């Protein structure tokens, strides 16, 4: 059984933006796209550890603020010719509330 943790309501996260949830695994960045989809990634770029929550969100991707790596919000994979992966966490939206699970979806590749 997946353990879902209520972390707040959708409006707490700016559209095309991100908020940080502090956890035992370290910071987790919660993203909200233009279409109001939510995603959760470990707040650490696979390149040099930049805080992805501080990046520019576009489509279902985020650009790391440190060196412009583009990371997929779906699975944390670096896009283009860069390779690396940051863990993604299951997250769901129900009745406008955002739920996060700390079961890691993927290990760092």
């Amino acid at each position, binding site marked *: 059984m997946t353990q879902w943790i209520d972390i707040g309501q959708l409006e707490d996260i700016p559209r095309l933006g991100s908020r940080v949830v*502090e956890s035992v695994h370290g910071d987790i960045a919660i993203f909200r796209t233009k279409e109001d989809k939510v995603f959760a990634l470990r707040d650490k770029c696979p390149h040099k550890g930049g805080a992805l929550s501080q990046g520019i969100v576009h489509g279902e991707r985020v650009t790391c603020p440190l060196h412009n790596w583009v990371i997929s919000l779906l699975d944390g994979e670096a896009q283009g010719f860069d390779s690396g992966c940051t863990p993604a966490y299951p997250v769901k939206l129900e009745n406008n509330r955002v739920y996060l699970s700390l079961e890691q979806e993927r290990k760092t590749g």
Partner: protein
Amino acid sequence: MKQKLVVVGNGMAGMRTVEELLKIASDKYDITVFGSEPHGNYNRIMLSPLLSGEKSLNDIMINDLEWYSTNNITLHAGYEKRVVKVDRRSKVVYAADGTEAVYDRLLLATGSNPFIIPVPGKDLGGVIAFRDISDVDTMLSAAKSKQHAIVIGGGLLGLEAANGLLKQGMDVTVVHNLEVLMNRQLDTVSAQYLQKALEERGMKFRMSANTSCLEGDEHGQVKSIKFDTGETLPADIVVMAAGIRPNTELAQTIGLYCERGIVVNDTLQTYDPCIYAVGECVQHRGELFGLVAPIWDQAKVCANHLAGFGIGIYKQKDVSTKLKVTGIDLFSAGNFLGDNDSEQIVFQDPSRGIYKKLVLKDDRIIGSVLYGDTVEGSWYFNLMREKTSVADFRDALIFGQHFVGDAGHQGQNAIVDMPDDAEVCGCNGICKGDIVKAITENKLFTLDDVRSATKASASCGSCSGLVEQILTATVGGNYSESPSEKPMCACTKYSHDSVRASITENGLKSFHEVAAFLEWDSGDGCHVCRPAINYYLVCAWPTEKVDDPRSRFINERVHANIQKDNTYSVIPRMWGGVTTPSELRAIADAADKYHVPCVKVTGGQRIDLLGVKKEDLPHIWKDLNNAGMVSGHAYGKALRTVKTCVGSEYCRFGTQDSTGMGIKLEKMTWGSWTPAKVKMAVSGCPRNCAEATIKDFGVVAVDSGWELYVAGNGGIKVRACDYLCKVTTEEEVLEYAGAFMQMYREQGRHNERSAPWVERVGLSYIKSEIVENPEQRKAFHARFLESQKYAQVDPWAERASHEVEKQEFIPLTQVG
């Protein structure tokens, strides 16, 4: 139900179109490809290195057979699979062996045929073209057992073939019907340099020679070539490389309208709306195509229409050819021959083997040929593309960018001589060998590809010219690049300037309005276009709330500079570099209270508090605000500092109050957003202790007034300022500064500092607007002051009071 797309022609143009199509609509079609060669799709440009033995067949494959099966593409390859008939009414394609395929859309990419000179003997054995892998195989086997090779045609292709055969050990003579080699790219002098260099390698030439016939032996094999002068040369193999003709055979058979090529419209559609055509077989607005860059553009547009998006039309662009013939550097672009209305600047150094010619018209470059030293090629091409007036630096133009105020790249300019382990990109530590490897392994063709694959030139960009040269040298042949209008980013085909014009003309007020109006390829853009457009909106509509924090880079969003460990730096403004004991005390207290690990004096005469945690930012700002300090904007594309020397108040040499002048300038300009960072300085005498002549706007006091300088910077490429003019009063300094700022704000491109901007538009233009036209100057200045009314709000105070962007600084929650 998927539709069916049939592609006739398995070459570079056709497969590039398919690749573009798969990128944007991978599920729309079942795709079937017919090709008359028994291979996957290979890089035809690389036939020369294949012939010379520098590359293997594997090296030049772009799409191997596995690629077709991975992408569910049915490939019919081989001579018997050549398409011979198309029934346009029932939409069926037939191959020679009877293979059929039904289509909804048909794409013709039949390429071109070599032009075979109609001389007696042209059908003899051993007379071949230089067009595909089988031609190369024929040449290679001839080289093993035979001696004499004749290449007819002294153009690019012919010389490459000749070079390959020479390297394979044959005795090679090039026959050319004109006096000038590569006459499509070179003028007489550069062609002579080239011929001499090739002769030194052992290549022979018969110039202005006309072939009267080819003579064969009793087995029908060619044995000699005879000229109209009566001279005869032995020939074991004859390569016809006298040009190409669009292959329109199939199109004509099936009744499509053709002239020299298959005629297509701006969406690459033929006269049959279900049939598209791309590449060397097409004729678009009267022109034919043979270079990669325009064909890539066609592929993109065609794919978009095949995908049913219907966006984009194909527009022809200026093309430069950078040639790499047998280790010799050549560059040619535009109208390199000139005419009665143009002038030429020529540089010639025969012992170093260097020749440069620039053709100018009305002080603008319209063409150029470079031989031996092509490092400035991309710079000249840029000046040509931007139609930049070179009036201000004509005297140094021919010597290159170094001589017009650019410190360059360690003086490196010949990539041929660079060892593989020489570092090209100093920001990312990328060596020449890495770049070459990435280009060959990933089959890269453009500077952008190389940038994303290797990161070379992706940071500061100062090595772009070198990277471009390596690309040219590696891709070889007819690599060409540079559309006339550089798109802003991969999301659009529009340039910065046209996007910007569209914003003001059409009253667009948000990124999404811009993206919708200009048909952006991606929904919400990328990290390149979003901040750029946000800036253009802020600049165009100063009185309205158009600024979108989500389109701002983190530093400008949280008004602090992100550091490598995700902490931030805080730099309060110190007007003109002047501070007080109480301000210093407040800074010291803040540093203690928030455990700031590093306190540093900056180059811009203020104090940097490094290592502040994000959640502490509003609190430390509040403390600094309480002591009367505001944001120093040390993080933004904005006015940074106004550096000053102490001036006449204390200095025994000072002629004017430079500190006071600096404070006034900073009070006027702080808070404004600009295309890139702006730094100013005021020096109190010509000793220039404030280093005002390497600033975006510099002021140097003299006894009789103030000298104004613009467009300098330290940084990536040190550039000393240009002298703008001299004024007498402080009010004038302020007016000129405000006018210059506003002109730069309105006309500079996002991320373009004032130095490259002024180099692009020309100092004379700046002078004509700001110095020679008082009304224009006053108008710029007035617009600047108007926008400053709304811009001069301390962003720290707004946030310290927790009213703006509150959520930015606190975690959402804590779990686990």
